[in-house]
């Protein structure tokens, strides 16, 4: 066999790239179902809590081109046992504003949308309860928080240690409601053939959607096929089934035609989840040398009346720094809001904003360099699980970042640098995200000519999985990239977990490596190393977490160093440059990995400066529910980004030594911006986003 260079690590161009730049890669809406498509549009509740008292579809039904109007009266019944936001059109009760109360199916999208306005709905409504505060009397402790973490973690005596500490910080940080807003709106196109359902759908894992459709419609999983080869961004909102999939399938069954439901941008604010707002009180106690003696991180956040989702906001605080006395808690208020869900790095994103801001405040109180403070509190092992790290290179990230950024010689004092109207400052924050592996099955076949087919129900939501998995397969099979044909994004393929929790390459990649190893062993053992003329096929996979997950603490780490400029006359905030250094284990594709890192960081800048969903406390709706009102970073908002990583595979994490990198970039990023903002202005804005008006608000308070 000829020697073949490894392609893992190389910056290979995306194999799906040429089709995507031309616009010919078919996303959910763009698939060809083989017959004319009917269009679905929805009537949404205008109240937050109550009941539909009158629903008259007659005028809509009479419009030319309308095929049907689905209401709770005539919609197909769904089976019990679904997540509580999925039984759409099953009752007249309303639990959040924007809930679907009727759906129109029509020949064209224009007719469907026009008919929505002709459906008459009246409600008996109660006052909406939508405002989160830390002093609500109805806050409760959930049984656990997202991803199976304990609600509270209490070690030692935090209050006693805080009382005895030489230096303390006690500050409350707030993050607003945020919406995932992938640019491809959620879209589901359903077609029934007898009792078999095919759905072309925008999601992060076809098998997840199959499970809910099969359960809801009383089908075997084999009767449902979900196809999602290309997905236009997701960031968590496409991880779970939402009402859109149920509705499209329901409507297609009723009209006996292919039906497509493409949400409007406005509907993206109520039907597919959001990140909860958080109110986070952080208290730190340290000795005069900056050694932490106490860490307390108490989180208040919301969930929906009909469904509990508890963001694991304080969980990164359980592992970032050493301290003998530790407390992390989560409390929820059940509000009349749409169900929240996961959004890029749920937990770490809001939690690291608070913790890393508080660390900066502590450094300022101590008169200590904030990088040095973090290094001084580096834990030798996981400070709460009391197990060793599989690998942890946070200190190297901070030190390398300091060197690349030009941190040395920085004046610790704030508001000391001006350039014309601009106040200039620099800030730092750490980043972290857990390393996990999920169950994944895989099939690899080879034909007599040495062409390999790799089949696994993974997803590429923009991560680069199409390319990175092909690279992994090429190396594992000791062949070249051109000999690999990869199939992902289809529930007919061997089952795997969705794209989420930065687990994709750890799970799907490990499954491919192990299955490839089996295939090569079989070729050697049974065929003397020769390819049989009619080929061979092998099934394999991984069961879930590897053997070291119980005995070691596994996380990716990173450091962000940021320059911020603030216009003294307008309060405008700019981020002209930033350096990020990551400890992400093996990097499979240098090009797409860099994109994951810089995209995550840029989303963190967006969170720091722009993103905020505003809910009207009286009328209970998201006021700024479009992309003109909900600001996300644009091209001009992002400056020069210096992205790099340490070349440190994590040998204990998985077959590839990688840590998962899709989410870590956003963690800590907003804190780095806020810390640099403080260094520029001397003003501490603790409630995101840091909009221009807050400069003058803080100036007045100072």
């Amino acid at each position, binding site marked *: 066999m000829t020697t073949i260079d490894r392609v893992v690590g190389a910056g290979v*161009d*995306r194999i*799906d*790239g*040429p089709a*995507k*730049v*031309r*616009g*010919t*890669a*078919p*996303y959910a*809406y*763009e698939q*060809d179902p083989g017959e004319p498509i009917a269009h679905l549009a929805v009537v949404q509740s205008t109240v937050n809590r109550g009941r539909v008292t009158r629903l008259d579809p007659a005028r809509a039904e009479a419009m030319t081109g309308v095929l049907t109007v689905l209401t709770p009266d005539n919609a197909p019944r769904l089976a019990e046992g679904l997540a509580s936001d999925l039984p759409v059109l099953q009752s007249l009760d309303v639990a959040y504003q924007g809930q679907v109360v009727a759906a129109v199916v029509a020949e*064209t*999208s*224009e*007719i469907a949308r*026009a008919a929505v306005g002709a459906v008459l709905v009246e409600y008996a409504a109660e006052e909406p309860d939508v405002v989160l505060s830390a002093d609500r009397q109805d806050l409760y402790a959930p049984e656990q928080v997202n991803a199976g973490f304990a609600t509270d973690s209490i070690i030692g005596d935090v209050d006693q240690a805080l009382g005895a500490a030489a230096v303390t910080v006690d500050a409350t940080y707030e993050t607003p409601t945020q919406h995932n*807003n*992938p*640019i*491809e*709106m959620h879209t589901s196109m359903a077609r029934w053939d007898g009792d078999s359902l095919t759905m072309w759908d925008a999601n992060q894992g076809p098998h997840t959607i199959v499970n809910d459709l099969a359960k809801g419609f009383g089908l075997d999983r084999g009767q449902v096929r979900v196809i999602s080869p*290309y*997905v*236009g*961004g*997701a*960031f968590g909102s496409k991880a779970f089934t939402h009402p859109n999939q149920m509705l499209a399938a329901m409507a297609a069954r009723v009209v006996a035609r292919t039906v497509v439901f*493409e949400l*409007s*941008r406005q509907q993206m604010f109520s039907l597919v989840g959001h990140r909860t707002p958080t109110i986070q009180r952080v208290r730190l106690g340290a000795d005069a040398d900056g050694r932490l003696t106490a860490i307390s991180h108490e989180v208040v956040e919301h969930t929906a009346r009909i469904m509990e989702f508890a963001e694991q906001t304080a969980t990164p605080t359980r592992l970032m720094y050493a301290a003998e006395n530790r407390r992390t808690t989560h409390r929820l208020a059940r509000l009349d809001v749409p169900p929240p869900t996961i959004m890029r790095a749920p937990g770490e994103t809001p939690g690291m904003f608070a913790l890393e801001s508080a660390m900066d405040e502590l450094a300022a109180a101590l008169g200590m360099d904030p990088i040095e403070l973090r290094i001084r509190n580096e834990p030798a092992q996981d400070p709460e699980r009391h197990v060793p790290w599989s690998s942890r290179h946070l200190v190297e990230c901070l030190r390398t970042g300091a060197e690349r950024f030009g941190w040395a010689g920085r004046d610790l004092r704030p508001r000391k640098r001006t350039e014309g109207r601009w106040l200039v400052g620099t800030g730092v924050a750490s980043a972290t995200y857990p390393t996990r592996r999920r169950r994944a099955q895989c099939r690899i076949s080879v034909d007599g000519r040495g062409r390999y087919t790799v089949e696994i129900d993974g997803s590429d*939501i*923009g*991560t*680069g999985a199409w390319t990175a998995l092909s690279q992994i397969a090429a190396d594992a099979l000791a062949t070249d990239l051109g000999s690999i044909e990869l199939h992902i994004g289809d529930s007919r393929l061997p089952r795997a977990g969705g794209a989420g929790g930065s687990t994709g390459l750890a799970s799907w990649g490990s499954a491919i490596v192990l299955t490839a190893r089996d295939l090569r062993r079989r070729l050697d053992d049974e065929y003397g190393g020769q390819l049989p003329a009619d080929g061979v096929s092998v099934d394999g996979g991984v069961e879930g977490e590897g053997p070291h997950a119980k005995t070691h603490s596994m996380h990716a780490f990173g450091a962000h160093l940021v320059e911020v400029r603030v216009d003294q006359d307008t309060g405008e905030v700019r981020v002209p440059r930033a350096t990020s250094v990551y400890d992400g284990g093996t990097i499979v594709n240098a090009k*797409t990995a*860099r*994109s*994951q890192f*810089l*995209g995550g960081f*840029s*989303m963190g800048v*967006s969170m720091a400066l722009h993103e905020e969903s505003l809910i009207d406390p009286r009328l209970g709706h998201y006021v700024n529910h*479009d*992309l*003109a009102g909900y600001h*996300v*970073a*644009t*091209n*001009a*908002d*992002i400056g*020069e*980004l210096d992205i790099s990583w340490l070349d440190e595979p994590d040998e204990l994490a998985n077959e590839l030594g990688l840590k998962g990198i899709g989410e870590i970039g956003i963690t800590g990023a907003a804190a780095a911006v806020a810390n640099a903002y403080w260094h520029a202005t001397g003003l501490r804005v603790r409630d995101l986003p840091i909009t221009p008006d807050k400069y003058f608000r803080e100036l007045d308070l100072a």
Partner: protein
Amino acid sequence: MDTEITLRVDGAAHPLTVDTRTTLLDALRERLRNTSPKKGCDHGQCGACTVLLDGRRVNSCLVLAVTVGDAEVTTSDGLAADGQPHRLHRSFVEYDAFQCGYCTPGQVCSAMGVLAEARAGWPSAVTGDLDDADVDLTDAEIRERMSGNLCRCAAYANIVPAVAAVAQAEGVRR
């Protein structure tokens, strides 16, 4: 109400009957099944639907199909002459100037517009001297001029060099 029109798209003429409420974007995507331009907001806020109308970039969701008349509509797919990728296509792939790829055909059409506008000396909000007949398409100019196209994956830091490399290759002042 329905009206008969002929849309000239990517070099081919398409006679069709449209509802007068139909946008150019929906006519392309739902009627002609040309799904190169994408729908990201349907309100002119995201730029994913950007196409060229007689060479000028427009949000096709804000153009009614019945108003297009004889104008030539060019999508990102239509920039690929004889099946060969356009220089911008190659540059976007080389610089990894996208992730999920959904906003990308709009970004590519917008970049075509930026190059033409810079050549024509059109100033932007960051142009220093508005009277200057020439524009230097600096990185800051590219950032500003590409800001009508949102990318939620935030590939911005790669879009800038991808566009700059093409500007360089085509002799646009930098």
